[in-house]
């Protein structure tokens, strides 16, 4: 990356004896949409708050547009932020909320009014200017919060779990709207979420965080298909993990339960007798043999869930079990619990986790 717009360099944060963020590094290009994804307590919001200026790093530096903003006050950073709890000012109307940053910046009233109208148009709520926040739904309030953050034309947009408080349907439509506005304005955006689907669907890149560190930073496709660590593999998407033992390192044979599969070139230096965890996405597994699948294992169907268009089947393989989805076919009856079954997959889809 030539000249990153936002550069977080070796940032750490400790509260007393507890280290919340440890040596976090990330470069973000201008106009990029990067998500911080991780479970609660992984440090994602703390990093965001350090970028906003609400927390001071214990170590490291933060640069925006080449300027060191590490110790700059939040009101001097020209950064927009949307909060999980909306944070609209209850005593101000929608228009006054959106115009707040402009008024503070001393923008002339006529220009501010024009900008507020533009923002209301952008979020498709042009007739809501005179209403108060309590008169709006959660989704509308969050759109107003987005407009308010964008009105002063910030250099950077920070979104702190902005969809968490909304119901599922609104969440999906609003995330698409956020992404569309972000693309339209070309504003560099950091989006914090613990929802993997959200992160995968709207990000240019994702930083998967765990224990205060970035476990992996990459494009959604890369994060999902080539997870760098066991945590990333487990956290992003559904993952089936089978325990195996290397039976012949030279030929890449791995014994799973009582059967052997060939994983040549994927053992990464493992020796014969080593224990391995083999991870497979549900969509990589087929019930029965399929052309192109070079590995198969026998088991017994332990659970069947009919979900309409798909049927989720759980197959027990020795002590472990794998979950897979098959499309519902009206002419074929669904599998029956207790039946013997064979699963097949391509050895290329197996992720070997050490």
């Amino acid at each position, binding site marked *: 990356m030539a000249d990153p717009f936002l550069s977080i360099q070796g940032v750490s944060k400790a509260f007393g004896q507890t280290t919340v963020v440890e040596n976090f590094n990330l470069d973000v290009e201008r106009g990029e949409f990067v998500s911080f994804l991780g479970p609660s307590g992984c440090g994602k919001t703390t990093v965001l708050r350090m970028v*906003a*200026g*609400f927390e001071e790093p214990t170590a490291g530096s933060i640069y925006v547009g080449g300027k060191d903003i590490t110790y700059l*006050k*939040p*009101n*001097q*950073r*020209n*950064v*927009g*932020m949307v*909060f*999980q*709890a*909306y*944070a*609209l*000012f*209850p*005593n101000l109307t929608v228009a006054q909320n959106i115009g*707040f*940053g402009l008024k*503070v*910046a001393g923008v002339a009233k006529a220009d501010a009014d024009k900008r507020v109208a533009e923002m209301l148009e952008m979020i498709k709520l042009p007739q809501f200017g005179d209403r*108060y*926040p*309590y008169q*709006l739904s*959660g989704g509308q*309030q969050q759109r107003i919060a987005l407009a*308010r*953050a964008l009105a*002063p034309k910030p250099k950077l947009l920070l979104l702190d779990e902005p969809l968490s*408080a*909304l119901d599922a349907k609104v969440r999906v439509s609003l995330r698409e709207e956020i992404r569309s506005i972000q693309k339209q304005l070309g504003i560099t955006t950091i989006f914090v979420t613990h929802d993997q689907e959200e992160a995968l669907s709207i990000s240019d890149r994702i930083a998967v965080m765990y224990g205060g560190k970035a476990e992996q930073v990459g494009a959604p496709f890369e994060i999902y298909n080539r997870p760098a660590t066991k945590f990333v593999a487990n956290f992003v998407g559904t993952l089936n993990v089978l325990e195996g033992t290397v039976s012949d390192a030279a030929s890449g044979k791995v014994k799973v339960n009582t059967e052997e599969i060939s994983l040549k070139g994927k053992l990464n230096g493992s020796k014969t007798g080593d224990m391995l965890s083999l991870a497979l996405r549900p969509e990589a597994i087929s019930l029965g043999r399929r052309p192109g699948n070079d590995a198969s294992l026998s088991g017994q169907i332990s659970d069947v869930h009919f979900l309409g268009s798909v049927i989720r089947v759980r197959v027990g393989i020795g002590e472990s079990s794998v979950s897979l989805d098959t499309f519902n076919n009206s002419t074929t009856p669904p599998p029956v619990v207790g039946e013997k079954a064979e699963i097949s997959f391509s050895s290329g889809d197996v992720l070997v986790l050490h």
Partner: protein
Amino acid sequence: MKTGRFWAWVTFILGACYFFIPLIATFEFSLRMRRGEYSFDAYSVVLGDARFQQTFSYSVIVAVFTIILGVLIVVPTAYWIRLRMPHLRPIVEFITLLPLIIPAIVIVFGYIRMYGSNSPLPFLASARGTDVLLIIGYATLALPYMYRAVDTGLRTIDVRTLTEAAQILGAGWTTIIGRIILPNVLIAVLSGAFLTFAIVIGEFTLASLLNRPAFGPYMQLVGANRAYEPAALAIIAFAITWGCMSVIQVLSRFAPKSANRPN
């Protein structure tokens, strides 16, 4: 009617009688100044008395300054405690409760000893200085009520998020407190202000021992020397206090409705 409900009503009626009968009796007595018939003569005498007007005006002015001082001290303190120093809350709450524990007479004797004409801060050396000391004393006496009112108001809004939202939009502390926090707790501040007003209007000890022409000492003086006028004054004082309470109730309907706590 269920037994529980019956006894609840009995208790309520007994409580209401305990409160209202002395009040009605006082009111009835205040109307008896003219022999053989009811009249508002006692009220005319009281309201027409120049000392009533002087002392009441004095107390109103002192109350206004007390409210301003109380707001200037309490709002930033309660806000800062909520925002940055929640660990100090028990200490601050204890301090604000002290005026309820320490009698006003102890406070005023402390003032007389500390701020006499020979002290480095000779408040008592002039009438204006004594007025200032009286206002400080009243602000202290009103602290438990003002602090709790403002703190309750702050509890209804998400102080931290609203502050951060304003900060990130470029606002400084004065703008945040003046345009975001204060308007959202204004009703609570007004509640505290009216409670302060009611306290100041009826207060006797501080004003009397600091020898200021306040309404409290005037009521005591009238009570000691007249028959019907004290009853009329008591009713007027009640009416002022109830008026304040009614204003609080009316204003609370205009409180900004918070939209900062998502379900």
